[in-house]
């Protein structure tokens, strides 16, 4: 597990995006689905989006093909905890979404993660939560049992 973190960190440092074989499909924010143009509409749409699914990720690329080291790190962390069923939105597909989500969360960077409609943070925060055990706790609150917990139980 730690080697995966180190490898991801290495990818972050080198700025390379790593291709990961398909896991989570995620809901995709398609242009055809977006019939709203006004900024205010995007804010309202985002309000609905983050409530609709337990885990929502705004990222660059998709879980199957992240286009940024930080977005990839988030995908990998969620995958390590066995969280495969989450909504993901690719901000590279839509510049208004990209700017809109930054305004909505009042957060300057992508990726952005929401748990039960509440903003959790970006890559740094998720990484620290993963390292200090908070991720398992937060997932438990969502009713998700982290697969790392299962692995730990088995190893005892």
């Amino acid at each position, binding site marked *: 597990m730690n080697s995966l973190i180190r490898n991801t960190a290495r990818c972050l*440092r*080198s*700025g390379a995006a790593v291709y990961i074989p398909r896991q989570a499909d995620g809901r995709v924010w398609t242009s055809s689905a977006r019939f709203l143009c006004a900024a205010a509409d995007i804010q309202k749409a985002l309000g609905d989006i983050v409530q609709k699914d337990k885990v929502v990720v705004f990222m660059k690329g998709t879980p199957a093909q992240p286009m940024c080291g*930080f977005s990839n790190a988030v995908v990998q962390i969620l995958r390590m905890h066995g969280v495969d069923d989450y909504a993901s939105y690719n901000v590279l597909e839509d510049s208004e979404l990209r700017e809109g989500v930054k305004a909505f969360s009042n957060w*300057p960077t992508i990726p952005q993660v929401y748990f039960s409609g509440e903003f*959790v*943070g*970006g890559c*740094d925060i998720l990484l620290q*939560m993963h390292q200090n055990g908070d991720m398992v706790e937060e997932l438990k609150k969502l009713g998700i049992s982290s697969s790392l917990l299962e692995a730990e139980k088995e190893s005892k």
Partner: protein
Amino acid sequence: MAITADHIRDKLTKELAAVHVDVEDTSPNRCAASYKVLVVSSQFEGKSLLQRHRLVNTCLAEELKEIHAFEQKTLTPEQWEKQKAQ
């Protein structure tokens, strides 16, 4: 405004009363201005990770508009001492 590592370091030190600030310019690894910072401040005491990061984001609000990628680590002086001892 020219964003430099020094500028960022000074601003963080001043506005967050930081006892230690590391600013690494990670731009050479990426296509645009990117920074990685470590901030140690007692203002982080009792605050969640998110609250701490928001403090830093607010402090650098103007700069972040022009920075492409930003990583941050926020520690209290106590956490910083502990980390150094490891």
